[in-house]
Protein backbone atom coordinates (compact mmCIF):
# COMPACT_ATOMS: atom_id res chain seq x y z
CA UNK A 1 0.00 0.00 0.00
CA UNK A 2 2.97 2.40 0.23
CA UNK A 3 2.42 3.23 -3.44
CA UNK A 4 -1.02 4.64 -2.68
CA UNK A 5 -0.03 8.32 -2.15
CA UNK A 6 2.04 8.15 -5.34
CA UNK A 7 -0.96 6.79 -7.29
CA UNK A 8 -3.13 9.56 -5.87
CA UNK A 9 -0.69 12.28 -6.97
CA UNK A 10 -0.38 10.83 -10.49
CA UNK A 11 -4.15 10.51 -10.61
CA UNK A 12 -4.56 14.18 -9.69
CA UNK A 13 -2.28 15.27 -12.56
CA UNK A 14 -4.28 13.20 -15.05
CA UNK A 15 -7.54 14.20 -13.41
CA UNK A 16 -6.84 17.92 -13.73
CA UNK A 17 -6.61 17.66 -17.50
CA UNK A 18 -9.61 15.32 -17.65
CA UNK A 19 -11.53 17.99 -15.77
CA UNK A 20 -10.53 20.59 -18.38
CA UNK A 21 -11.76 18.28 -21.13
CA UNK A 22 -14.94 17.52 -19.24
CA UNK A 23 -15.79 21.16 -18.46
CA UNK A 24 -15.52 22.04 -22.14
CA UNK A 25 -17.68 19.13 -23.21
CA UNK A 26 -20.29 19.57 -20.50
CA UNK A 27 -20.79 23.23 -21.50
CA UNK A 28 -21.28 22.28 -25.16
CA UNK A 29 -23.43 19.26 -24.36
CA UNK A 30 -25.54 20.96 -21.72
CA UNK A 31 -26.01 24.34 -23.32
CA UNK A 32 -26.18 23.52 -27.02
CA UNK A 33 -27.46 19.92 -26.78
CA UNK A 34 -24.66 18.94 -29.13
CA UNK A 35 -22.98 15.58 -28.56
CA UNK A 36 -19.56 16.77 -29.60
CA UNK A 37 -17.74 13.74 -30.93
CA UNK A 38 -15.06 16.06 -32.33
CA UNK A 39 -14.11 17.20 -28.80
CA UNK A 40 -11.12 14.88 -28.72
CA UNK A 41 -9.87 16.37 -31.98
CA UNK A 42 -9.58 19.80 -30.39
CA UNK A 43 -7.48 18.12 -27.71
CA UNK A 44 -5.25 16.66 -30.44
CA UNK A 45 -5.17 20.06 -32.13
CA UNK A 46 -3.91 21.62 -28.90
CA UNK A 47 -1.12 19.08 -28.60
CA UNK A 48 0.03 19.62 -32.20
CA UNK A 49 -0.23 23.40 -31.88
CA UNK A 50 2.01 23.18 -28.81
CA UNK A 51 4.37 20.90 -30.70
CA UNK A 52 4.56 23.30 -33.64
CA UNK A 53 5.19 26.28 -31.38
CA UNK A 54 7.80 24.58 -29.17
CA UNK A 55 9.68 22.35 -31.56
CA UNK A 56 9.46 24.29 -34.79
CA UNK A 57 9.12 27.96 -33.76
CA UNK A 58 10.97 27.93 -30.41
CA UNK A 59 8.21 29.78 -28.57
CA UNK A 60 8.49 29.75 -24.73
CA UNK A 61 6.39 27.09 -22.96
CA UNK A 62 3.69 29.39 -21.58
CA UNK A 63 3.41 31.12 -24.96
CA UNK A 64 2.92 27.77 -26.65
CA UNK A 65 0.16 26.91 -24.19
CA UNK A 66 -1.54 30.23 -24.97
CA UNK A 67 -1.15 29.65 -28.68
CA UNK A 68 -2.71 26.20 -28.41
CA UNK A 69 -5.70 27.61 -26.52
CA UNK A 70 -6.08 30.36 -29.14
CA UNK A 71 -6.04 27.80 -31.97
CA UNK A 72 -8.74 25.81 -30.19
CA UNK A 73 -10.89 28.90 -29.58
CA UNK A 74 -10.64 30.13 -33.19
CA UNK A 75 -11.29 26.75 -34.77
CA UNK A 76 -14.08 26.06 -32.30
CA UNK A 77 -15.81 29.33 -33.17
CA UNK A 78 -15.40 28.57 -36.86
CA UNK A 79 -16.87 25.06 -36.43
CA UNK A 80 -19.89 26.45 -34.65
CA UNK A 81 -20.52 29.09 -37.30
CA UNK A 82 -20.06 26.84 -40.32
CA UNK A 83 -21.39 23.46 -39.18
CA UNK A 84 -23.59 23.88 -36.14
CA UNK A 85 -25.47 27.13 -36.65
CA UNK A 86 -27.24 25.95 -39.85
CA UNK A 87 -28.30 22.78 -38.03
CA UNK A 88 -29.92 24.42 -35.00
CA UNK A 89 -33.32 22.86 -34.55
CA UNK A 90 -32.37 19.70 -36.44
CA UNK A 91 -32.61 16.39 -34.60
CA UNK A 92 -29.84 15.57 -32.14
CA UNK A 93 -28.94 12.52 -34.25
CA UNK A 94 -28.23 14.60 -37.37
CA UNK A 95 -25.98 16.92 -35.41
CA UNK A 96 -24.27 13.93 -33.86
CA UNK A 97 -23.53 12.46 -37.29
CA UNK A 98 -22.10 15.77 -38.50
CA UNK A 99 -19.79 15.87 -35.50
CA UNK A 100 -18.71 12.29 -36.22
CA UNK A 101 -17.94 13.39 -39.78
CA UNK A 102 -15.90 16.32 -38.46
CA UNK A 103 -14.08 14.00 -36.05
CA UNK A 104 -13.03 11.63 -38.85
CA UNK A 105 -12.11 14.48 -41.18
CA UNK A 106 -10.02 16.32 -38.55
CA UNK A 107 -8.22 13.19 -37.42
CA UNK A 108 -7.23 12.17 -40.93
CA UNK A 109 -6.19 15.72 -41.78
CA UNK A 110 -3.85 15.56 -38.79
CA UNK A 111 -2.61 12.19 -39.97
CA UNK A 112 -1.88 13.65 -43.40
CA UNK A 113 -0.30 16.80 -42.00
CA UNK A 114 1.90 15.29 -39.28
CA UNK A 115 2.25 11.64 -40.23
CA UNK A 116 1.36 8.67 -38.09
CA UNK A 117 4.57 8.62 -36.03
CA UNK A 118 4.12 9.96 -32.50
CA UNK A 119 5.90 13.26 -31.79
CA UNK A 120 7.49 14.00 -28.47
CA UNK A 121 6.90 17.59 -27.41
CA UNK A 122 9.97 19.33 -25.91
CA UNK A 123 9.61 21.16 -22.60
CA UNK A 124 12.02 23.25 -20.50
CA UNK A 125 11.50 21.47 -17.17
CA UNK A 126 14.22 19.35 -15.52
CA UNK A 127 13.45 15.63 -15.62
CA UNK A 128 14.67 14.80 -12.10
CA UNK A 129 11.60 14.39 -9.88
CA UNK A 130 11.01 16.56 -6.86
CA UNK A 131 10.75 14.28 -3.85
CA UNK A 132 8.80 14.84 -0.68
CA UNK A 133 9.23 11.89 1.63
CA UNK A 134 7.96 8.85 -0.27
CA UNK A 135 6.36 11.01 -2.97
CA UNK A 136 8.07 11.87 -6.24
CA UNK A 137 6.67 14.16 -8.88
CA UNK A 138 8.31 15.43 -12.04
CA UNK A 139 8.40 19.25 -12.24
CA UNK A 140 6.55 19.06 -15.58
CA UNK A 141 3.68 17.16 -13.98
CA UNK A 142 3.55 19.63 -11.12
CA UNK A 143 3.32 22.46 -13.65
CA UNK A 144 0.58 20.63 -15.57
CA UNK A 145 -1.43 20.17 -12.40
CA UNK A 146 -1.02 23.83 -11.45
CA UNK A 147 -1.87 25.08 -14.95
CA UNK A 148 -4.91 22.80 -15.16
CA UNK A 149 -6.18 24.00 -11.79
CA UNK A 150 -5.58 27.61 -12.87
CA UNK A 151 -7.52 27.11 -16.09
CA UNK A 152 -10.37 25.36 -14.26
CA UNK A 153 -10.54 28.32 -11.91
CA UNK A 154 -10.49 30.66 -14.91
CA UNK A 155 -13.38 28.79 -16.54
CA UNK A 156 -15.38 28.99 -13.30
CA UNK A 157 -14.69 32.72 -13.16
CA UNK A 158 -15.86 33.22 -16.74
CA UNK A 159 -19.04 31.30 -16.05
CA UNK A 160 -19.88 32.86 -12.70
CA UNK A 161 -18.37 36.37 -12.76
CA UNK A 162 -18.77 37.75 -16.27
CA UNK A 163 -21.69 39.01 -18.35
CA UNK A 164 -20.94 36.31 -20.90
CA UNK A 165 -21.11 33.67 -18.20
CA UNK A 166 -24.40 34.99 -16.92
CA UNK A 167 -25.84 34.90 -20.44
CA UNK A 168 -24.53 31.35 -20.81
CA UNK A 169 -26.15 30.23 -17.58
CA UNK A 170 -29.41 31.91 -18.58
CA UNK A 171 -29.35 30.17 -21.98
CA UNK A 172 -28.72 26.86 -20.28
CA UNK A 173 -31.69 27.28 -17.96
CA UNK A 174 -34.18 28.51 -20.53
CA UNK A 175 -33.09 29.61 -24.01
CA UNK A 176 -36.45 31.15 -24.92
CA UNK A 177 -36.67 33.36 -21.86
CA UNK A 178 -33.00 34.28 -22.21
CA UNK A 179 -33.63 35.32 -25.82
CA UNK A 180 -36.60 37.45 -24.70
CA UNK A 181 -34.32 39.16 -22.17
CA UNK A 182 -32.03 40.20 -24.99
CA UNK A 183 -29.45 37.44 -24.89
CA UNK A 184 -28.23 36.69 -28.40
CA UNK A 185 -28.44 32.93 -28.35
CA UNK A 186 -26.45 32.44 -31.57
CA UNK A 187 -23.52 34.39 -30.12
CA UNK A 188 -23.70 32.50 -26.85
CA UNK A 189 -23.51 29.24 -28.78
CA UNK A 190 -20.44 30.41 -30.68
CA UNK A 191 -18.79 31.58 -27.46
CA UNK A 192 -19.65 28.33 -25.67
CA UNK A 193 -18.24 26.13 -28.40
CA UNK A 194 -15.13 28.30 -28.65
CA UNK A 195 -14.60 28.20 -24.88
CA UNK A 196 -15.12 24.43 -24.73
CA UNK A 197 -12.77 23.82 -27.64
CA UNK A 198 -10.16 26.14 -26.13
CA UNK A 199 -10.24 24.17 -22.88
CA UNK A 200 -9.87 20.89 -24.79
CA UNK A 201 -6.90 22.32 -26.69
CA UNK A 202 -5.37 23.44 -23.38
CA UNK A 203 -5.70 19.90 -22.04
CA UNK A 204 -3.94 18.57 -25.15
CA UNK A 205 -1.13 21.08 -24.89
CA UNK A 206 -0.66 20.17 -21.20
CA UNK A 207 -0.77 16.38 -21.49
CA UNK A 208 1.07 16.29 -24.83
CA UNK A 209 4.53 16.88 -23.32
CA UNK A 210 3.93 14.21 -20.65
CA UNK A 211 2.87 11.57 -23.15
CA UNK A 212 3.28 11.97 -26.91
CA UNK A 213 1.35 13.69 -29.68
CA UNK A 214 -0.19 11.37 -32.29
CA UNK A 215 -3.23 11.73 -34.55
CA UNK A 216 -5.55 9.30 -32.75
CA UNK A 217 -4.75 10.60 -29.24
CA UNK A 218 -8.08 12.42 -29.20
CA UNK A 219 -10.19 9.27 -29.31
CA UNK A 220 -9.36 8.21 -25.78
CA UNK A 221 -9.50 11.83 -24.61
CA UNK A 222 -13.04 12.16 -25.98
CA UNK A 223 -14.07 8.95 -24.25
CA UNK A 224 -12.70 10.29 -21.00
CA UNK A 225 -14.41 13.62 -21.48
CA UNK A 226 -17.73 11.86 -22.00
CA UNK A 227 -17.30 9.76 -18.87
CA UNK A 228 -16.45 12.90 -16.91
CA UNK A 229 -19.55 14.70 -18.21
CA UNK A 230 -21.79 11.78 -17.38
CA UNK A 231 -20.18 11.33 -13.97
CA UNK A 232 -20.67 14.98 -13.15
CA UNK A 233 -24.11 15.46 -14.69
CA UNK A 234 -25.02 17.27 -17.86
CA UNK A 235 -24.03 20.93 -17.96
CA UNK A 236 -22.70 20.77 -14.42
CA UNK A 237 -19.30 22.48 -14.36
CA UNK A 238 -18.56 21.71 -10.72
CA UNK A 239 -19.59 18.11 -11.37
CA UNK A 240 -17.24 17.88 -14.36
CA UNK A 241 -14.37 19.22 -12.24
CA UNK A 242 -14.99 16.65 -9.53
CA UNK A 243 -15.69 13.93 -12.11
CA UNK A 244 -12.40 14.62 -13.89
CA UNK A 245 -10.35 14.37 -10.73
CA UNK A 246 -12.20 11.21 -9.68
CA UNK A 247 -11.70 9.55 -13.09
CA UNK A 248 -7.97 10.35 -13.08
CA UNK A 249 -7.55 8.82 -9.63
CA UNK A 250 -9.78 5.81 -10.46
CA UNK A 251 -7.72 5.08 -13.57
CA UNK A 252 -4.41 5.32 -11.71
CA UNK A 253 -5.70 3.01 -8.99
CA UNK A 254 -7.23 0.63 -11.55
CA UNK A 255 -3.99 0.48 -13.53
CA UNK A 256 -1.91 0.13 -10.35
CA UNK A 257 -3.93 -2.51 -8.53
CA UNK A 258 -6.04 -4.33 -11.13
CA UNK A 259 -4.57 -4.46 -14.62
CA UNK A 260 -3.05 -1.82 -16.84
CA UNK A 261 -4.59 -3.47 -19.93
CA UNK A 262 -8.03 -2.50 -18.71
CA UNK A 263 -7.04 1.05 -17.71
CA UNK A 264 -9.14 2.58 -20.47
CA UNK A 265 -12.09 0.33 -19.65
CA UNK A 266 -12.64 2.43 -16.49
CA UNK A 267 -14.13 5.22 -18.59
CA UNK A 268 -16.49 2.91 -20.48
CA UNK A 269 -17.63 1.17 -17.31
CA UNK A 270 -18.30 4.51 -15.63
CA UNK A 271 -20.45 5.62 -18.57
CA UNK A 272 -22.48 2.43 -18.55
CA UNK A 273 -22.96 2.20 -14.78
CA UNK A 274 -23.73 5.87 -14.17
CA UNK A 275 -26.19 6.07 -17.06
CA UNK A 276 -27.96 2.94 -15.95
CA UNK A 277 -28.14 3.61 -12.25
CA UNK A 278 -27.72 7.33 -11.68
CA UNK A 279 -28.38 9.04 -15.00
CA UNK A 280 -28.34 12.57 -13.64
CA UNK A 281 -24.75 12.24 -12.45
CA UNK A 282 -23.10 12.18 -9.06
CA UNK A 283 -23.96 15.74 -8.10
CA UNK A 284 -27.58 15.29 -9.13
CA UNK A 285 -29.52 18.39 -10.03
CA UNK A 286 -32.98 18.46 -11.43
CA UNK A 287 -32.17 19.03 -15.08
CA UNK A 288 -31.74 16.21 -17.52
CA UNK A 289 -32.13 16.35 -21.27
CA UNK A 290 -32.74 13.33 -23.43
Amino acid at each position, binding site marked *: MEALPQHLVNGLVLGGTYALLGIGLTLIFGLMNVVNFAHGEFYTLGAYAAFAALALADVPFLGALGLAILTGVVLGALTERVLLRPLRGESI*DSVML*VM*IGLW*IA*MQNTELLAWGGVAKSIPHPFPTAPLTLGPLGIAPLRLFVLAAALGLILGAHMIIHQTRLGRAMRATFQDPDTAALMGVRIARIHTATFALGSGLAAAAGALLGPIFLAYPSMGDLAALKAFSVV*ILGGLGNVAGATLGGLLLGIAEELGAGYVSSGYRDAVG*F*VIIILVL*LFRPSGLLARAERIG
Partner: protein
Amino acid sequence: MFIGLAALATAPAWLPSPYHLHILIMAGIFAILALSLNLLLGYTGQLSLGHAAFFGIGAYTSALLTLSLEWSFWAALPAATAAAAAAGWAIGRLALKLRGAYFVLVTISFAGVISLVSVNWMELTNGPLGLPGVPAPTLGPWSLRTKSAYYYLVLAGVALAWLVCRRLVHSRIGRAFLALRENEALAESVGIDVTRYLVLAAVFSAALAGMAGSLYAHYTRFVSPEVFLFTYTVTMVIMVVAGGKGTLAGPLIGALLFTVLPEALREATSWQWQMLAYGVILVLLIFFLPRGIVPTLALWTRR
Protein backbone atom coordinates in the same frame (compact mmCIF):
# COMPACT_ATOMS: atom_id res chain seq x y z
CA MET B 1 -34.80 -4.58 -61.37
CA PHE B 2 -34.72 -7.99 -63.08
CA ILE B 3 -31.65 -7.01 -65.04
CA GLY B 4 -30.00 -6.03 -61.79
CA LEU B 5 -30.87 -9.34 -60.15
CA ALA B 6 -29.72 -11.30 -63.19
CA ALA B 7 -26.47 -9.32 -63.23
CA LEU B 8 -25.92 -10.13 -59.53
CA ALA B 9 -26.72 -13.82 -60.01
CA THR B 10 -24.19 -14.21 -62.81
CA ALA B 11 -21.56 -11.81 -61.45
CA PRO B 12 -18.74 -14.39 -61.13
CA ALA B 13 -19.14 -15.13 -64.87
CA TRP B 14 -18.82 -11.60 -66.19
CA LEU B 15 -16.63 -9.79 -63.63
CA PRO B 16 -13.14 -9.35 -65.09
CA SER B 17 -11.10 -10.44 -62.05
CA PRO B 18 -11.31 -12.13 -58.61
CA TYR B 19 -10.47 -8.72 -57.12
CA HIS B 20 -13.78 -7.31 -58.38
CA LEU B 21 -15.57 -10.33 -56.97
CA HIS B 22 -13.87 -9.69 -53.64
CA ILE B 23 -15.27 -6.16 -53.60
CA LEU B 24 -18.74 -7.52 -54.30
CA ILE B 25 -18.42 -10.07 -51.48
CA MET B 26 -17.42 -7.31 -49.05
CA ALA B 27 -20.34 -5.22 -50.33
CA GLY B 28 -22.62 -8.17 -49.53
CA ILE B 29 -21.29 -8.52 -45.99
CA PHE B 30 -21.70 -4.79 -45.45
CA ALA B 31 -25.19 -4.94 -46.95
CA ILE B 32 -26.19 -7.37 -44.19
CA LEU B 33 -24.65 -5.03 -41.61
CA ALA B 34 -26.42 -2.00 -43.08
CA LEU B 35 -29.76 -3.86 -43.13
CA SER B 36 -29.16 -4.79 -39.51
CA LEU B 37 -28.36 -1.23 -38.40
CA ASN B 38 -31.31 0.06 -40.41
CA LEU B 39 -33.71 -2.01 -38.32
CA LEU B 40 -32.73 0.04 -35.29
CA LEU B 41 -31.79 3.39 -36.79
CA GLY B 42 -34.26 3.46 -39.66
CA TYR B 43 -37.32 1.77 -38.22
CA THR B 44 -37.22 2.47 -34.49
CA GLY B 45 -35.14 5.65 -34.67
CA GLN B 46 -32.51 4.50 -32.15
CA LEU B 47 -28.93 5.23 -33.23
CA SER B 48 -26.61 2.44 -32.11
CA LEU B 49 -22.93 3.30 -32.41
CA GLY B 50 -21.84 -0.02 -30.95
CA HIS B 51 -22.85 -2.15 -33.87
CA ALA B 52 -19.32 -3.30 -34.62
CA ALA B 53 -19.54 -5.15 -31.29
CA PHE B 54 -22.25 -7.51 -32.60
CA PHE B 55 -20.31 -7.99 -35.83
CA GLY B 56 -17.19 -8.82 -33.81
CA ILE B 57 -19.04 -11.13 -31.40
CA GLY B 58 -20.36 -13.05 -34.41
CA ALA B 59 -16.92 -13.24 -36.00
CA TYR B 60 -15.17 -14.41 -32.81
CA THR B 61 -17.90 -16.91 -31.89
CA SER B 62 -17.79 -18.51 -35.31
CA ALA B 63 -13.99 -18.55 -35.45
CA LEU B 64 -13.59 -19.99 -31.94
CA LEU B 65 -16.24 -22.69 -32.41
CA THR B 66 -14.72 -23.91 -35.68
CA LEU B 67 -11.10 -23.60 -34.48
CA SER B 68 -11.25 -24.88 -30.89
CA LEU B 69 -14.27 -27.19 -30.92
CA GLU B 70 -14.02 -28.10 -34.62
CA TRP B 71 -17.67 -27.35 -35.26
CA SER B 72 -18.74 -27.21 -38.88
CA PHE B 73 -19.42 -23.79 -40.39
CA TRP B 74 -23.11 -24.66 -40.73
CA ALA B 75 -23.40 -25.09 -36.97
CA ALA B 76 -21.13 -22.16 -36.16
CA LEU B 77 -23.08 -19.67 -38.29
CA PRO B 78 -26.37 -20.05 -36.36
CA ALA B 79 -24.42 -20.16 -33.09
CA ALA B 80 -22.69 -16.87 -33.97
CA THR B 81 -26.03 -15.36 -34.89
CA ALA B 82 -27.51 -16.55 -31.59
CA ALA B 83 -24.55 -15.26 -29.56
CA ALA B 84 -24.87 -11.80 -31.10
CA ALA B 85 -28.65 -11.90 -30.58
CA ALA B 86 -28.12 -12.73 -26.90
CA ALA B 87 -25.73 -9.79 -26.58
CA GLY B 88 -28.30 -7.62 -28.35
CA TRP B 89 -30.95 -8.73 -25.91
CA ALA B 90 -28.77 -7.96 -22.87
CA ILE B 91 -27.71 -4.54 -24.16
CA GLY B 92 -31.22 -3.78 -25.31
CA ARG B 93 -32.69 -4.60 -21.91
CA LEU B 94 -30.13 -2.41 -20.18
CA ALA B 95 -29.73 0.50 -22.58
CA LEU B 96 -33.14 0.98 -24.14
CA LYS B 97 -34.38 2.68 -21.00
CA LEU B 98 -32.26 5.54 -22.31
CA ARG B 99 -32.84 7.68 -25.36
CA GLY B 100 -30.91 9.91 -27.71
CA ALA B 101 -27.39 10.80 -26.73
CA TYR B 102 -27.43 8.58 -23.64
CA PHE B 103 -28.37 5.47 -25.61
CA VAL B 104 -25.64 6.26 -28.14
CA LEU B 105 -23.02 6.65 -25.42
CA VAL B 106 -23.95 3.36 -23.76
CA THR B 107 -23.73 1.50 -27.08
CA ILE B 108 -20.31 3.03 -27.81
CA SER B 109 -19.10 2.13 -24.33
CA PHE B 110 -20.34 -1.43 -24.69
CA ALA B 111 -18.42 -1.82 -27.95
CA GLY B 112 -15.36 -0.29 -26.27
CA VAL B 113 -15.45 -2.75 -23.37
CA ILE B 114 -15.92 -5.76 -25.68
CA SER B 115 -13.04 -4.56 -27.84
CA LEU B 116 -10.74 -4.21 -24.80
CA VAL B 117 -11.74 -7.70 -23.68
CA SER B 118 -10.80 -9.09 -27.10
CA VAL B 119 -7.37 -7.46 -26.80
CA ASN B 120 -6.70 -8.46 -23.19
CA TRP B 121 -8.25 -11.93 -22.80
CA MET B 122 -5.24 -13.70 -24.31
CA GLU B 123 -6.29 -17.28 -23.46
CA LEU B 124 -9.53 -17.03 -25.36
CA THR B 125 -8.89 -14.57 -28.19
CA ASN B 126 -5.10 -14.70 -28.62
CA GLY B 127 -5.15 -10.94 -27.97
CA PRO B 128 -4.02 -8.47 -30.60
CA LEU B 129 -2.48 -11.25 -32.70
CA GLY B 130 -5.92 -12.54 -33.55
CA LEU B 131 -7.05 -15.98 -34.67
CA PRO B 132 -5.56 -17.12 -37.98
CA GLY B 133 -6.61 -20.19 -39.99
CA VAL B 134 -10.38 -19.98 -39.60
CA PRO B 135 -11.54 -22.83 -41.88
CA ALA B 136 -13.44 -22.16 -45.09
CA PRO B 137 -16.92 -23.66 -45.12
CA THR B 138 -17.63 -26.91 -46.95
CA LEU B 139 -20.88 -27.99 -48.54
CA GLY B 140 -21.02 -31.78 -48.74
CA PRO B 141 -17.96 -32.78 -50.77
CA TRP B 142 -17.28 -29.24 -52.02
CA SER B 143 -15.21 -26.57 -50.33
CA LEU B 144 -16.53 -23.01 -50.56
CA ARG B 145 -12.97 -21.76 -50.55
CA THR B 146 -13.15 -20.16 -53.99
CA LYS B 147 -14.34 -16.59 -54.31
CA SER B 148 -17.16 -17.42 -56.70
CA ALA B 149 -18.57 -20.10 -54.37
CA TYR B 150 -18.31 -17.78 -51.38
CA TYR B 151 -19.96 -15.05 -53.39
CA TYR B 152 -23.11 -17.16 -53.70
CA LEU B 153 -23.01 -17.95 -49.99
CA VAL B 154 -22.87 -14.23 -49.15
CA LEU B 155 -25.54 -13.46 -51.73
CA ALA B 156 -27.80 -16.01 -50.03
CA GLY B 157 -27.00 -14.34 -46.71
CA VAL B 158 -28.00 -10.93 -48.06
CA ALA B 159 -31.22 -12.36 -49.49
CA LEU B 160 -32.03 -14.00 -46.15
CA ALA B 161 -31.32 -10.80 -44.21
CA TRP B 162 -33.40 -8.77 -46.63
CA LEU B 163 -36.33 -11.19 -46.41
CA VAL B 164 -36.18 -11.19 -42.61
CA CYS B 165 -36.21 -7.38 -42.58
CA ARG B 166 -39.05 -7.22 -45.11
CA ARG B 167 -41.14 -9.75 -43.21
CA LEU B 168 -40.51 -7.94 -39.95
CA VAL B 169 -41.19 -4.45 -41.29
CA HIS B 170 -44.46 -5.42 -42.97
CA SER B 171 -45.80 -7.18 -39.89
CA ARG B 172 -47.60 -5.84 -36.83
CA ILE B 173 -44.17 -5.65 -35.20
CA GLY B 174 -42.85 -3.40 -37.95
CA ARG B 175 -45.83 -1.09 -37.67
CA ALA B 176 -45.20 -0.91 -33.94
CA PHE B 177 -41.57 0.08 -34.67
CA LEU B 178 -42.73 2.92 -36.93
CA ALA B 179 -45.26 4.08 -34.39
CA LEU B 180 -42.51 4.22 -31.76
CA ARG B 181 -40.21 6.13 -34.09
CA GLU B 182 -42.84 8.71 -34.96
CA ASN B 183 -44.29 9.35 -31.53
CA GLU B 184 -43.32 7.25 -28.58
CA ALA B 185 -45.81 8.66 -26.12
CA LEU B 186 -48.69 8.21 -28.55
CA ALA B 187 -47.59 4.66 -29.39
CA GLU B 188 -47.48 3.80 -25.73
CA SER B 189 -50.92 5.27 -25.17
CA VAL B 190 -52.45 2.89 -27.74
CA GLY B 191 -50.96 -0.05 -25.91
CA ILE B 192 -47.61 -0.66 -27.60
CA ASP B 193 -45.12 -2.04 -25.11
CA VAL B 194 -42.20 0.29 -25.87
CA THR B 195 -39.36 -1.60 -24.22
CA ARG B 196 -40.51 -4.98 -25.53
CA TYR B 197 -40.56 -3.84 -29.15
CA LEU B 198 -37.31 -1.90 -28.93
CA VAL B 199 -35.57 -4.92 -27.39
CA LEU B 200 -37.03 -7.09 -30.15
CA ALA B 201 -35.58 -4.73 -32.76
CA ALA B 202 -32.21 -4.82 -30.99
CA VAL B 203 -32.22 -8.64 -30.93
CA PHE B 204 -32.98 -8.97 -34.64
CA SER B 205 -30.52 -6.24 -35.50
CA ALA B 206 -27.73 -7.81 -33.43
CA ALA B 207 -28.48 -11.28 -34.84
CA LEU B 208 -28.07 -10.09 -38.42
CA ALA B 209 -24.84 -8.28 -37.53
CA GLY B 210 -23.60 -11.51 -35.90
CA MET B 211 -24.41 -13.45 -39.05
CA ALA B 212 -22.43 -10.93 -41.09
CA GLY B 213 -19.56 -11.35 -38.62
CA SER B 214 -19.53 -15.12 -39.12
CA LEU B 215 -19.59 -14.75 -42.92
CA TYR B 216 -16.72 -12.27 -42.64
CA ALA B 217 -14.64 -14.55 -40.40
CA HIS B 218 -14.90 -17.54 -42.74
CA TYR B 219 -14.20 -15.40 -45.76
CA THR B 220 -11.06 -13.56 -44.61
CA ARG B 221 -10.25 -16.67 -42.49
CA PHE B 222 -8.69 -14.40 -39.86
CA VAL B 223 -10.26 -12.61 -36.90
CA SER B 224 -8.52 -9.95 -34.79
CA PRO B 225 -9.67 -7.13 -32.48
CA GLU B 226 -9.84 -4.98 -35.60
CA VAL B 227 -13.34 -6.33 -36.21
CA PHE B 228 -14.42 -4.00 -33.38
CA LEU B 229 -13.02 -0.89 -35.05
CA PHE B 230 -15.25 2.13 -34.76
CA THR B 231 -14.60 2.69 -38.45
CA TYR B 232 -16.85 -0.28 -39.22
CA THR B 233 -19.69 1.23 -37.25
CA VAL B 234 -19.23 4.59 -38.96
CA THR B 235 -19.19 2.88 -42.36
CA MET B 236 -22.49 1.16 -41.55
CA VAL B 237 -24.02 4.44 -40.43
CA ILE B 238 -22.89 6.21 -43.62
CA MET B 239 -24.32 3.39 -45.75
CA VAL B 240 -27.71 3.53 -44.04
CA VAL B 241 -27.93 7.33 -43.99
CA ALA B 242 -26.76 7.66 -47.61
CA GLY B 243 -29.01 4.90 -48.91
CA GLY B 244 -32.04 5.98 -46.97
CA LYS B 245 -33.03 5.29 -43.38
CA GLY B 246 -36.20 3.29 -42.95
CA THR B 247 -36.28 1.84 -46.46
CA LEU B 248 -35.54 -1.73 -47.47
CA ALA B 249 -33.57 -0.86 -50.61
CA GLY B 250 -31.58 2.01 -49.05
CA PRO B 251 -29.07 -0.06 -47.06
CA LEU B 252 -28.37 -2.27 -50.09
CA ILE B 253 -27.71 0.71 -52.35
CA GLY B 254 -25.67 2.42 -49.64
CA ALA B 255 -23.57 -0.68 -49.01
CA LEU B 256 -22.85 -1.22 -52.69
CA LEU B 257 -22.00 2.45 -53.24
CA PHE B 258 -19.74 2.81 -50.22
CA THR B 259 -17.82 -0.39 -50.89
CA VAL B 260 -17.30 0.16 -54.60
CA LEU B 261 -16.57 3.89 -54.39
CA PRO B 262 -13.68 3.70 -51.89
CA GLU B 263 -12.17 0.81 -53.84
CA ALA B 264 -12.41 2.82 -57.05
CA LEU B 265 -10.67 5.73 -55.31
CA ARG B 266 -8.07 3.51 -53.68
CA GLU B 267 -5.75 3.45 -56.66
CA ALA B 268 -5.73 7.23 -56.86
CA THR B 269 -5.47 8.05 -53.17
CA SER B 270 -4.19 6.80 -49.85
CA TRP B 271 -6.27 5.43 -47.02
CA GLN B 272 -6.08 8.70 -45.06
CA TRP B 273 -7.53 10.67 -47.95
CA GLN B 274 -10.25 8.10 -48.24
CA MET B 275 -11.15 8.40 -44.56
CA LEU B 276 -10.99 12.19 -44.79
CA ALA B 277 -13.45 11.96 -47.69
CA TYR B 278 -15.70 9.72 -45.56
CA GLY B 279 -15.88 12.38 -42.88
CA VAL B 280 -16.62 15.13 -45.38
CA ILE B 281 -19.21 12.97 -47.17
CA LEU B 282 -21.01 12.28 -43.89
CA VAL B 283 -21.23 16.03 -43.19
CA LEU B 284 -22.38 16.81 -46.74
CA LEU B 285 -25.01 14.05 -46.63
CA ILE B 286 -26.61 15.49 -43.51
CA PHE B 287 -26.58 18.98 -45.01
CA PHE B 288 -27.73 18.24 -48.55
CA LEU B 289 -29.26 14.75 -48.67
CA PRO B 290 -30.62 14.14 -45.19
CA ARG B 291 -33.23 11.64 -46.36
CA GLY B 292 -30.84 9.50 -48.36
CA ILE B 293 -30.73 8.39 -51.97
CA VAL B 294 -33.71 6.01 -52.16
CA PRO B 295 -36.37 8.27 -50.58
CA THR B 296 -35.12 11.26 -52.59
CA LEU B 297 -35.33 9.29 -55.84
CA ALA B 298 -38.77 8.02 -54.90
CA LEU B 299 -39.87 11.61 -54.33
CA TRP B 300 -38.54 12.67 -57.75
CA THR B 301 -40.18 9.86 -59.68
CA ARG B 302 -43.51 10.50 -58.01
CA ARG B 303 -43.55 14.13 -59.21
